[in-house]
Protein backbone atom coordinates (compact mmCIF):
# COMPACT_ATOMS: atom_id res chain seq x y z
CA UNK A 1 0.00 0.00 0.00
CA UNK A 2 2.73 2.36 0.92
CA UNK A 3 4.44 1.71 -2.34
CA UNK A 4 1.22 2.55 -4.13
CA UNK A 5 1.05 5.74 -2.16
CA UNK A 6 4.60 6.65 -2.94
CA UNK A 7 4.06 5.92 -6.59
CA UNK A 8 0.91 8.02 -6.58
CA UNK A 9 2.59 10.97 -4.95
CA UNK A 10 5.48 10.87 -7.34
CA UNK A 11 3.21 10.66 -10.35
CA UNK A 12 0.92 13.30 -8.95
CA UNK A 13 3.84 15.59 -8.36
CA UNK A 14 5.20 14.93 -11.81
CA UNK A 15 1.95 15.43 -13.62
CA UNK A 16 1.02 18.52 -11.68
CA UNK A 17 4.38 20.16 -11.98
CA UNK A 18 4.52 19.33 -15.65
CA UNK A 19 1.01 20.67 -16.06
CA UNK A 20 1.99 23.87 -14.32
CA UNK A 21 5.01 24.10 -16.55
CA UNK A 22 2.78 23.83 -19.59
CA UNK A 23 0.88 26.80 -18.36
CA UNK A 24 3.69 28.84 -16.94
CA UNK A 25 6.61 28.54 -19.27
CA UNK A 26 6.99 31.08 -22.00
CA UNK A 27 8.48 28.97 -24.73
CA UNK A 28 5.76 26.92 -26.41
CA UNK A 29 8.18 24.14 -27.29
CA UNK A 30 8.90 23.67 -23.62
CA UNK A 31 5.20 23.75 -22.98
CA UNK A 32 4.75 20.97 -25.45
CA UNK A 33 7.48 18.94 -23.88
CA UNK A 34 6.00 19.52 -20.45
CA UNK A 35 2.70 18.36 -21.80
CA UNK A 36 4.33 15.16 -22.96
CA UNK A 37 5.65 14.77 -19.44
CA UNK A 38 2.18 15.25 -18.05
CA UNK A 39 0.74 12.69 -20.40
CA UNK A 40 3.33 10.18 -19.49
CA UNK A 41 2.71 10.65 -15.82
CA UNK A 42 -1.01 10.42 -16.41
CA UNK A 43 -0.34 7.15 -18.15
CA UNK A 44 1.51 6.13 -15.03
CA UNK A 45 -1.47 7.08 -12.96
CA UNK A 46 -3.64 4.93 -15.20
CA UNK A 47 -1.35 2.08 -14.41
CA UNK A 48 -1.75 2.67 -10.70
CA UNK A 49 -5.47 2.52 -11.27
CA UNK A 50 -5.18 -0.71 -13.13
CA UNK A 51 -6.11 0.62 -16.50
CA UNK A 52 -3.24 -0.88 -18.40
CA UNK A 53 -4.78 -0.79 -21.80
CA UNK A 54 -5.64 2.87 -21.44
CA UNK A 55 -2.18 3.62 -20.19
CA UNK A 56 -0.85 2.14 -23.39
CA UNK A 57 -3.25 4.02 -25.52
CA UNK A 58 -2.44 7.18 -23.63
CA UNK A 59 1.23 6.74 -24.39
CA UNK A 60 0.73 5.85 -28.01
CA UNK A 61 -2.06 8.15 -29.03
CA UNK A 62 -1.48 11.07 -26.80
CA UNK A 63 2.15 11.25 -25.94
CA UNK A 64 3.02 9.78 -29.26
CA UNK A 65 0.76 10.98 -32.02
CA UNK A 66 -0.94 14.06 -30.69
CA UNK A 67 2.07 15.54 -29.07
CA UNK A 68 4.16 14.93 -32.13
CA UNK A 69 1.56 16.83 -34.05
CA UNK A 70 1.86 19.71 -31.66
CA UNK A 71 5.59 19.76 -31.74
CA UNK A 72 5.57 19.55 -35.50
CA UNK A 73 3.25 22.48 -35.82
CA UNK A 74 5.35 24.45 -33.40
CA UNK A 75 8.40 23.68 -35.40
CA UNK A 76 6.59 24.63 -38.53
CA UNK A 77 5.70 27.99 -37.06
CA UNK A 78 9.23 28.42 -35.88
CA UNK A 79 8.18 30.54 -32.95
CA UNK A 80 10.97 32.35 -31.23
CA UNK A 81 11.21 32.24 -27.51
CA UNK A 82 8.42 34.44 -26.35
CA UNK A 83 9.02 36.99 -23.66
CA UNK A 84 5.58 37.04 -22.18
CA UNK A 85 3.73 33.84 -21.56
CA UNK A 86 0.54 35.52 -20.49
CA UNK A 87 -1.79 38.01 -21.97
CA UNK A 88 -1.37 41.48 -20.56
CA UNK A 89 -3.85 43.18 -18.29
CA UNK A 90 -3.37 43.19 -14.56
CA UNK A 91 -6.96 43.60 -13.59
CA UNK A 92 -8.32 40.96 -15.89
CA UNK A 93 -5.63 38.55 -14.86
CA UNK A 94 -6.40 39.11 -11.21
CA UNK A 95 -10.05 38.46 -11.95
CA UNK A 96 -9.17 35.35 -13.88
CA UNK A 97 -6.89 34.05 -11.19
CA UNK A 98 -9.36 34.86 -8.48
CA UNK A 99 -12.03 33.06 -10.36
CA UNK A 100 -9.82 30.04 -10.86
CA UNK A 101 -8.87 30.04 -7.22
CA UNK A 102 -12.49 30.12 -6.18
CA UNK A 103 -13.31 27.32 -8.54
CA UNK A 104 -10.41 25.30 -7.24
CA UNK A 105 -11.56 25.91 -3.71
CA UNK A 106 -15.10 24.94 -4.55
CA UNK A 107 -14.08 21.76 -6.27
CA UNK A 108 -11.57 20.80 -3.64
CA UNK A 109 -14.00 21.53 -0.88
CA UNK A 110 -16.70 19.50 -2.51
CA UNK A 111 -14.40 16.61 -3.28
CA UNK A 112 -12.98 16.53 0.20
CA UNK A 113 -16.31 16.77 1.87
CA UNK A 114 -18.14 14.34 -0.37
CA UNK A 115 -18.66 10.83 0.66
CA UNK A 116 -18.05 8.28 -2.03
CA UNK A 117 -19.81 5.16 -2.86
CA UNK A 118 -17.66 2.13 -2.12
CA UNK A 119 -14.78 4.13 -0.83
CA UNK A 120 -12.95 0.99 0.12
CA UNK A 121 -13.15 -1.34 -2.77
CA UNK A 122 -12.34 -4.93 -2.91
CA UNK A 123 -8.88 -5.13 -4.23
CA UNK A 124 -9.81 -7.00 -7.30
CA UNK A 125 -6.68 -7.84 -9.09
CA UNK A 126 -7.65 -8.49 -12.59
CA UNK A 127 -5.19 -9.58 -15.09
CA UNK A 128 -4.38 -6.95 -17.64
CA UNK A 129 -5.38 -9.17 -20.48
CA UNK A 130 -8.73 -10.00 -18.94
CA UNK A 131 -9.50 -6.43 -18.34
CA UNK A 132 -8.66 -5.46 -21.86
CA UNK A 133 -10.83 -8.24 -23.11
CA UNK A 134 -13.69 -7.06 -21.02
CA UNK A 135 -13.12 -3.59 -22.28
CA UNK A 136 -13.21 -4.78 -25.83
CA UNK A 137 -16.39 -6.68 -25.21
CA UNK A 138 -18.05 -3.66 -23.77
CA UNK A 139 -16.83 -1.48 -26.57
CA UNK A 140 -18.22 -3.70 -29.26
CA UNK A 141 -21.52 -4.41 -27.65
CA UNK A 142 -22.90 -1.71 -25.53
CA UNK A 143 -20.84 1.10 -26.93
CA UNK A 144 -20.78 -0.10 -30.47
CA UNK A 145 -22.77 2.79 -31.77
CA UNK A 146 -20.52 5.33 -30.18
CA UNK A 147 -17.54 3.53 -31.48
CA UNK A 148 -18.88 3.57 -35.02
CA UNK A 149 -19.73 7.21 -34.88
CA UNK A 150 -16.29 7.87 -33.51
CA UNK A 151 -14.88 6.19 -36.55
CA UNK A 152 -16.92 8.37 -38.79
CA UNK A 153 -15.80 11.37 -36.77
CA UNK A 154 -12.20 10.52 -37.41
CA UNK A 155 -12.92 10.22 -41.10
CA UNK A 156 -14.66 13.55 -41.07
CA UNK A 157 -11.78 15.16 -39.29
CA UNK A 158 -9.29 13.67 -41.68
CA UNK A 159 -11.18 14.79 -44.76
CA UNK A 160 -11.97 18.11 -43.21
CA UNK A 161 -8.40 18.82 -42.29
CA UNK A 162 -7.30 18.02 -45.80
CA UNK A 163 -10.02 20.14 -47.25
CA UNK A 164 -9.07 22.96 -44.96
CA UNK A 165 -5.49 22.74 -45.97
CA UNK A 166 -6.56 23.04 -49.59
CA UNK A 167 -8.92 25.87 -49.01
CA UNK A 168 -8.03 29.47 -49.56
CA UNK A 169 -5.55 30.49 -46.91
CA UNK A 170 -4.75 26.85 -46.32
CA UNK A 171 -1.37 25.22 -46.64
CA UNK A 172 -1.88 23.67 -50.04
CA UNK A 173 -3.10 25.90 -52.73
CA UNK A 174 -4.76 24.38 -55.71
Amino acid sequence: MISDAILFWILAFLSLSAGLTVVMIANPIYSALALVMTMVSVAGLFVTLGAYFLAGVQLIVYAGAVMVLFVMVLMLFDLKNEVYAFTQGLLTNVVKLGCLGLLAGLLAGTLVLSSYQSQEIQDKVVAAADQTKALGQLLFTQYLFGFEVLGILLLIVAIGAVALSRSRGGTHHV
Partner: protein
Amino acid sequence: MYNLNWFSQIGLQHYLLLSSALFICGMAGVLLRKNAIVILMSIELMLNAVNISFVAFSHYQSKLEGQIMVFFVMTIAAAEAAVGLAIMVSIFKRFREVNIRFFERLKG
Protein backbone atom coordinates in the same frame (compact mmCIF):
# COMPACT_ATOMS: atom_id res chain seq x y z
CA MET B 1 -2.97 10.04 12.85
CA TYR B 2 -5.40 11.18 10.34
CA ASN B 3 -2.87 13.24 8.48
CA LEU B 4 -0.42 10.45 7.91
CA ASN B 5 -3.20 8.14 6.97
CA TRP B 6 -4.40 10.60 4.42
CA PHE B 7 -0.98 10.56 2.84
CA SER B 8 -0.52 6.86 2.92
CA GLN B 9 -4.02 5.69 2.20
CA ILE B 10 -4.48 6.65 -1.41
CA GLY B 11 -8.09 6.57 -2.45
CA LEU B 12 -10.54 7.97 -4.93
CA GLN B 13 -10.41 11.36 -3.32
CA HIS B 14 -6.74 11.78 -4.04
CA TYR B 15 -7.18 11.05 -7.67
CA LEU B 16 -10.11 13.38 -7.90
CA LEU B 17 -8.23 16.17 -6.22
CA LEU B 18 -5.33 15.65 -8.55
CA SER B 19 -7.71 15.65 -11.46
CA SER B 20 -9.32 18.89 -10.32
CA ALA B 21 -5.93 20.48 -9.82
CA LEU B 22 -4.93 19.54 -13.33
CA PHE B 23 -8.24 20.72 -14.64
CA ILE B 24 -7.81 24.12 -13.00
CA CYS B 25 -4.29 24.17 -14.37
CA GLY B 26 -5.65 23.64 -17.85
CA MET B 27 -8.27 26.27 -17.34
CA ALA B 28 -5.62 28.68 -16.21
CA GLY B 29 -3.76 27.98 -19.40
CA VAL B 30 -6.81 28.70 -21.50
CA LEU B 31 -7.59 31.86 -19.60
CA LEU B 32 -4.13 33.26 -19.32
CA ARG B 33 -1.83 32.14 -22.08
CA LYS B 34 -1.13 34.35 -24.99
CA ASN B 35 -0.07 31.75 -27.48
CA ALA B 36 -2.99 30.11 -29.24
CA ILE B 37 -1.20 26.77 -29.56
CA VAL B 38 -0.49 26.65 -25.89
CA ILE B 39 -4.16 27.30 -25.34
CA LEU B 40 -4.90 24.22 -27.43
CA MET B 41 -2.43 22.30 -25.26
CA SER B 42 -4.17 23.57 -22.16
CA ILE B 43 -7.43 22.19 -23.45
CA GLU B 44 -5.68 18.86 -23.88
CA LEU B 45 -4.55 19.20 -20.30
CA MET B 46 -8.10 19.69 -19.15
CA LEU B 47 -9.20 16.61 -21.05
CA ASN B 48 -6.42 14.64 -19.43
CA ALA B 49 -7.61 15.76 -16.05
CA VAL B 50 -11.07 14.55 -16.93
CA ASN B 51 -9.59 11.26 -17.98
CA ILE B 52 -7.93 10.79 -14.62
CA SER B 53 -11.20 11.36 -12.89
CA PHE B 54 -12.99 8.89 -15.18
CA VAL B 55 -10.44 6.22 -14.69
CA ALA B 56 -10.40 6.78 -10.97
CA PHE B 57 -14.16 6.45 -10.76
CA SER B 58 -14.00 3.45 -13.00
CA HIS B 59 -11.40 1.84 -10.84
CA TYR B 60 -12.99 2.48 -7.50
CA GLN B 61 -16.41 1.44 -8.63
CA SER B 62 -15.07 -1.39 -10.74
CA LYS B 63 -17.12 -0.20 -13.67
CA LEU B 64 -15.41 -0.43 -16.97
CA GLU B 65 -17.71 2.16 -18.59
CA GLY B 66 -15.45 4.83 -17.28
CA GLN B 67 -12.58 3.41 -19.21
CA ILE B 68 -14.65 3.27 -22.35
CA MET B 69 -15.41 6.90 -21.80
CA VAL B 70 -11.74 7.66 -21.47
CA PHE B 71 -11.08 5.77 -24.65
CA PHE B 72 -13.60 7.89 -26.49
CA VAL B 73 -12.36 11.08 -24.92
CA MET B 74 -8.85 10.34 -26.01
CA THR B 75 -9.94 9.79 -29.56
CA ILE B 76 -11.99 12.91 -29.60
CA ALA B 77 -9.17 14.83 -28.03
CA ALA B 78 -6.94 13.67 -30.81
CA ALA B 79 -9.48 14.66 -33.40
CA GLU B 80 -9.95 17.99 -31.71
CA ALA B 81 -6.23 18.56 -31.65
CA ALA B 82 -6.05 17.75 -35.33
CA VAL B 83 -8.82 20.15 -36.18
CA GLY B 84 -7.47 22.83 -33.92
CA LEU B 85 -4.02 22.54 -35.34
CA ALA B 86 -5.36 22.51 -38.87
CA ILE B 87 -7.19 25.73 -38.18
CA MET B 88 -4.13 27.21 -36.53
CA VAL B 89 -1.93 26.25 -39.41
CA SER B 90 -4.26 27.77 -41.93
CA ILE B 91 -4.40 30.94 -39.90
CA PHE B 92 -0.69 31.04 -39.31
CA LYS B 93 0.15 30.47 -42.93
CA ARG B 94 -2.02 33.40 -43.88
CA PHE B 95 -1.44 35.86 -41.09
CA ARG B 96 1.75 34.72 -39.33
CA GLU B 97 0.20 35.20 -35.99
CA VAL B 98 -0.62 32.97 -33.02
CA ASN B 99 -1.22 35.60 -30.39
CA ILE B 100 -4.72 35.33 -29.12
CA ARG B 101 -5.02 39.10 -29.03
CA PHE B 102 -4.85 38.97 -32.79
CA PHE B 103 -8.37 37.57 -32.87
CA GLU B 104 -10.26 40.61 -31.72
CA ARG B 105 -11.69 41.93 -34.90
CA LEU B 106 -15.13 40.56 -34.15
CA LYS B 107 -16.51 42.30 -31.13
CA GLY B 108 -19.11 44.67 -29.76
